[in-house]
């Protein structure tokens, strides 16, 4: 049993408590504590990624109650990866928030931030379905606070919608988990998987109904069609560092689908195996199509980026819906890419909005921006990356998914949607880039501010992922291949969890 | 014998509880309805609590007197509730039946 798995969850919580105690009213101290903690956990997360690379599932039985009775944390490649991603985003987001003083726009920013990390890391590491619910609630409530941080008309409206939709979602989560417990009699994912495999045929309909309901719940978080309607406003209206951090939020939903449904309906599940995969692709198609149109229709930069996030979700749903290890490699690659770069884009958009001054984020010609060349170059890079144009990571992610789709009977639809949506997105981004940076009114006096020096590292750091993921594509995809294989080896997961012994030494 | 008394007490308690609600149900104005619940119901609950106290004292052979506490709380809180509800009703100038005496006092 490795204690390492517990720390990414515990450290943020401890930090939050320290912040509650110590840093009331002392912004500087709060910033330092928060930053130090995020740095520490980021380093830890990177270590965990290394540790998880030996393909061993590290199971941490909380309270020393052996699975399936107690709650377990399970560290494997995927959970380590997700925690790592979360922390990288957190680092950039926090750095940007501090640089632009966003954390001063309302109370409790730093505490909420750490609670958010607690929820996210917990959700990624837990091996228990009800505990996943609890962490969902933690991360949601923290996200409500962060989303609304700073206030404002549209932000409040978007927040209200986000909150209410997720509250209904939480209800559905409980219905689904309840029904599953009512049929399977367990909450530990590994144990449930075993019970699914052994369930009598007469229970299959119920299991299917409950897990499809759960899929809807995860679909809300993932913003899959038709459950995505909260996303554009929420991402577009919140403050930039939070939008950036939220790039991981939708991935939580996808992660949960991969983790829960993937484990429950793996190859061992007999008639039920692969229960949800056909649905994922369909949801992916529609999400992707609508998202591409949304990107094209957007009249505001931040809305456009929000739809880009949605498009990446559509692509990911298709990727995970293909369900082969090969497709998982592509989907995971694309997941890393889209998370980091969408975050970068939100931050950049904020710099652009600041630089445009009164012109704001409307996609209309405005005054030339101070330092427009730099912003334009960054925009160009991010647009390329997110539209999936070579030579940046987005292209390779799509390529991996498209390659995997070659073996799928519904290849034609996958191809049509992925490529057509890429086309629409290219058209849209070319238009907005050209509007923002080329079509400037030279005579109009600029009312904007040049980008803060301190805010740039966050953007650049995230953006760096795009070339790095291409240059180091080989080790990365090799690692992801092993991850995909580990995910497909549900028997390995189940055995690792269910054979975890209790700690025996006496104090 | 004791059991007979207990049984009777239970029925009496239930009866008063019911009476309270009947009052609530059938009396014609708010102020009159207020009477049933505040006492009959309270008393009914009290009677049943007494039964409970005796019953569990006998059963476990140690005195079970905590029911007294419930009664105590009820006796303190029920009138407070009634008072505030009446105050609200007075504020809202709720209708009283025609033959109510000293109506004018209520609006003073």
């Amino acid at each position: 049993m490795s204690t390492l798995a517990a720390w990414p969850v515990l450290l943020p919580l401890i930090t939050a408590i320290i912040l509650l105690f110590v840093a009331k009213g002392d912004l500087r101290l709060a910033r330092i504590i928060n930053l130090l903690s995020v740095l520490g956990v980021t380093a830890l997360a990177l270590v965990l990624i290394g540790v998880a690379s030996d393909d061993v599932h590290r199971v941490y039985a909380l309270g020393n109650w052996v699975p399936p009775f107690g709650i377990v944390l399970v560290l494997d490649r995927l959970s380590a990866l997700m925690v790592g991603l979360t922390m990288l985003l957190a680092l950039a987001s926090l750095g940007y928030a501090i640089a632009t003083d966003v954390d001063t726009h309302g109370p409790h920013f730093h505490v909420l931030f750490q609670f958010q990390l607690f929820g996210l890391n917990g959700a990624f590491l837990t091996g228990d379905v009800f505990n996943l619910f609890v962490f969902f609630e933690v991360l949601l409530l923290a996200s409500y606070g962060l989303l609304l941080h700073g206030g404002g008309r549209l932000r409040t409206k978007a927040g209200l919608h986000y909150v209410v939709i997720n509250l209904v979602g939480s209800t559905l989560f409980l219905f689904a988990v309840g029904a599953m417990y009512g049929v399977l009699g367990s909450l530990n994912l590994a144990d449930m998987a075993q019970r699914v495999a052994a369930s009598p045929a007469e229970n299959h309909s119920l299991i299917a109904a409950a897990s499809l309901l759960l899929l809807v719940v995860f679909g809300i978080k993932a913003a899959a069609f038709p459950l995505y309607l909260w996303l554009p406003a929420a991402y577009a209206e919140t403050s930039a560092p939070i939008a950036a951090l939220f790039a991981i939020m939708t991935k939580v939903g996808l992660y949960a689908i991969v983790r829960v449904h993937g484990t429950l309906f793996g190859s061992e599940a007999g008639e039920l195996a692969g229960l949800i995969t056909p649905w994922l692709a369909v949801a992916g198609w529609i999400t992707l199509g609508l998202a591409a149109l949304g990107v094209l229709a957007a009249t505001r930069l931040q809305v456009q980026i929000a739809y880009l996030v949605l498009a990446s979700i559509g692509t990911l749903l298709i990727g995970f819906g293909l369900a082969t290890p090969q497709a998982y490699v592509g989907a995971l690659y694309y997941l890393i890419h889209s998370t980091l770069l969408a975050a970068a884009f939100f931050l950049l958009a904020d710099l652009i909005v600041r630089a445009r001054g009164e012109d704001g984020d409307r996609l209309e010609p405005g005054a030339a921006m101070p330092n427009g060349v730099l912003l334009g170059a960054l925009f160009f890079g991010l647009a390329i990356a997110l539209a999936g144009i070579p030579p940046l990571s987005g292209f390779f992610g799509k390529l991996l998914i498209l390659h995997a789709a070659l073996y799928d009977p519904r290849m034609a639809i996958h191809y049509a949607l992925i490529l057509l949506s890429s086309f629409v997105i290219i058209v849209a981004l070319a238009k907005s880039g050209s509007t923002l940076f080329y079509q400037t009114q030279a005579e109009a006096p600029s009312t904007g501010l040049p980008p803060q020096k301190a805010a740039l590292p966050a953007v650049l750091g995230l953006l760096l992922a795009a070339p790095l993921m291409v240059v180091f594509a080989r080790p990365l995809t090799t690692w992801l291949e092993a991850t995909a294989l580990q995910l497909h080896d549900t028997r390995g997961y189940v055995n690792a969890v269910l054979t975890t012994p209790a700690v025996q030494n006496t104090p | 014998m004791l059991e007979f008394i207990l049984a009777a007490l239970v029925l009496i308690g239930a009866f008063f509880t019911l009476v309270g609600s009947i009052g609530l149900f059938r009396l014609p104005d708010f102020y009159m309805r207020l009477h049933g619940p505040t006492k009959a119901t309270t008393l009914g609950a009290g009677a049943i609590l007494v039964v409970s106290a005796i019953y569990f004292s006998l059963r476990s052979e140690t005195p079970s007197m905590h029911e007294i506490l419930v009664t105590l709380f009820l006796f303190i809180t029920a009138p407070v509730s009634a008072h505030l509800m009446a105050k609200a009703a007075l504020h809202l100038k709720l209708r009283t039946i025609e033959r109510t005496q000293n109506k004018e006092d209520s609006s003073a």
Partner: protein
Amino acid sequence: MSLLRQALPHPLLSLTLLMLWLLLNNSLSTGQLLLGGFWAVLIPRLTAAFWPESVRIRRPGVLLRFVGIVLRDILVANFIVARRILGPVEALRPGFMRIPLDVQSPLAISLLANTISLTPGTVSCDVSPDRRFLLVHALHVTDIEAEIRQIKSRYERPLQEVFT
């Protein structure tokens, strides 16, 4: 003495709490006695700010008798009220009564109001802002003046004796 006063700002309350603790736990074990004692000391201290004036009970005997009377009244009068509730509604003669108050301590007024409410047939509705009258609604009253006198003598006087 002042130390004791500090430790037990409301000895009566502390005693009540201890008794209630034992009641709650249905136990007279040493452990519970100690624990109850602990609460009996701690809770009054924690809530001392809410009880600025100490409650003095002058004549505990009168209080006990008063409690007895009230309990008896509750029992007896309930039967009367039950009959009235179940009987013909048309026969009821409801009415409001303004009872002039002699007691002035808030606790006494409150206990009086409570007593009136608990005893069947009457519900205290309001205290005038100047604390001079208590407005009471009666379910069935034929002689209002007599009823007021009855209430004042039966309930208010003992209370006045206990709390002044």
